[in-house]
């Protein structure tokens, strides 16, 4: 079997969990797992990754201090041409999404993105991904090729305990020319609002099912009765019905309250990633097939405008 390359991802001095997940997943396929690490002064990461890989190729250079698609694409393409791996895995993250399609076009390598499961038939991957916001699984068959590229959804593989001691090999930066067309400027943190939902014990999460700004009191009253804070899906934040610091999910906050009551939220994985660690999850949604019911503990399949006011009443009664 040909080697499996896994692109390590790190940002602002932190190795991202997806790296260890992919390395742990790749270890089960039988090939030599080679981690690719680009960065500046990243010995610590290299040593940590070595516990999960058969080999770590490190390119340490100023140009990799922060992610830059131009630098990454050139370097990866050069390393791939030199080492001929059969498979390249990277995260389906803000980084992987910005890099994988361009690299795949350049190398003529079939790419399947956002995979949620993977089987290997020899050197050929048979990945599964999702369609229609998680309502269907799609079984994909890539075209026969020397190299396949996959971007992997978070939590597709579980990060194992370190069990290897891969050799760390520093390689010379294969990119000789200047990075001229794209320049990293800075990272800017999202604004902090008045309520920190990551600290809330009880959360009512509101989604697009609320329909209009003027319906917000329906969930506000429930939250008030419960003594909960309001959180939201991205759809509600995009529409401007709640501020961005209330957004739960992959591009928002990760919350772990005692109760997460999802109202009119479909349960797209980008949302679920941010709230699946909640102790008790309840969903109210009129669509029995909404993916949110797959992770909720309790569900009510009904019109939220009928159920939520009743629920508010009952909670008030219970509280006396």
């Amino acid at each position, binding site marked *: 079997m040909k080697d499996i390359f896994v692109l390590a991802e790190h940002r602002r001095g932190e190795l991202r969990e997806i790296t260890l997940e992919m390395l742990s997943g790749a270890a089960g396929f039988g090939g030599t797992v080679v981690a690719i690490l680009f960065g500046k002064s990243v010995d610590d990461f290299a040593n940590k990754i070595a516990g999960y890989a058969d080999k770590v190729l490190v390119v340490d250079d100023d140009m990799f201090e922060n*992610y830059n*698609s131009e630098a990454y694409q050139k370097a990866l393409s050069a390393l791939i041409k030199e080492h001929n791996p059969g498979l390249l895995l990277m995260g389906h*993250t*803000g*980084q992987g*999404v*910005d890099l*994988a*399609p*361009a690299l*795949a*076009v350049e190398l003529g390598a079939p*790419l*399947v*993105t956002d995979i949620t499961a993977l089987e290997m038939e020899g050197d050929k991957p048979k990945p599964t991904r999702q*369609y*229609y*916001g998680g*309502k*269907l*699984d*799609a*079984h*994909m*068959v*890539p*075209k026969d090729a020397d190299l396949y590229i996959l971007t992997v959804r978070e939590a597709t593989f579980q990060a194992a305990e370190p069990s290897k001691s891969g050799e760390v090999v520093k390689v010379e930066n294969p990119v000789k020319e200047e990075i001229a*067309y*794209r*320049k*990293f*400027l*800075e*990272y*800017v943190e*999202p604004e902090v609002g008045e309520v920190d939902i990551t600290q809330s014990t009880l959360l009512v999460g509101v989604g697009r099912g609320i329909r209009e700004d003027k319906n917000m009191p329906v969930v506000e009253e429930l939250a008030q009765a*419960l003594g909960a804070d309001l959180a939201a899906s*991205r759809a509600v934040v*995009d529409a*401007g019905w709640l501020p961005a610091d209330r957004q739960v999910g992959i*591009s*928002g906050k990760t919350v772990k309250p*005692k109760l997460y009551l999802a109202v009119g939220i479909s349960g797209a994985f980008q949302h679920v990633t941010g709230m699946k660690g909640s102790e*008790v999850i*309840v*969903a109210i949604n009129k669509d*029995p097939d909404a*993916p949110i*019911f*797959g*992770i909720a503990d*309790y569900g*009510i399949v009904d019109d939220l405008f009928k*159920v939520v006011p*009743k*629920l508010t009443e*009952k*909670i008030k009664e*219970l*509280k006396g």
Partner: protein
Amino acid sequence: MNMVVCVKRVPDTAESEVHIDASGKDIDKSKLSFGINEADNYAVEEAIQIKERLGGTVNVISVGGKDSDEQIRMALAKGGDEAIRIEDPAMAGSDGFAIAKALAAAIKGMEFDIVFTGALADDDGSAVVGVALAELLGVNHAAYVKKVEILEDGKKIKVGRELEGGLMEFLEMELPAVLTIQTGINEPRYASFKGIKQAAKKEIAIKSLSDLGLDASEVGEAGSWAVLEKFTPPVVGEMAEILTGEPEETAAKLAAILKEKGLV
């Protein structure tokens, strides 16, 4: 600024049941309503706002059947200038790579500063087309863009990419470029009645593969990176315990459970 916006017509499946059809590779779309892909709506708005600030043109382009004219015309009604629709039977079964090839063939001959796509399509959700298109066109790109600032000389832009946790990554790049636009970047407008009337009269240029100089083998399943073997219902863990009854009853049941768990 001369701009191109790629728009896709997609079924609205967030609130409807989705049934796999007899082929096993598609869904029954007969009962679904359709609309513009959510992120594309923001991409259209971004292009129109830039045109309103700096002048230029907005060219709308879509790969799809006649029905897609509805989404194209809506973009024209909001301020788009011209439109192209790529339609060819050989496009069936195309993945993001094949779609990107068709779009690239149509865009190659145009004078453009920025091509906008959505960050991802609501149906296949691949997040492939924009960045693949950039590489095919040989221009710069940035994915998940949630802020665009055209710098003074009009030859460079500063863009903010939205990453995990809402962190923004700012970078500067030379134009031309392809930007994949993330939802929430702006407030998409509604088309005016006058705009809709004017757009109804505009011509949409229909292009086949041969018009674009593409061979059938470059698109469809043959020209794709991967083919969809079959759909299956998703593997879910343990399903929620569904509380049944009239709203009065379900609300009471839920309140009792919350009480029992010490949450009320």
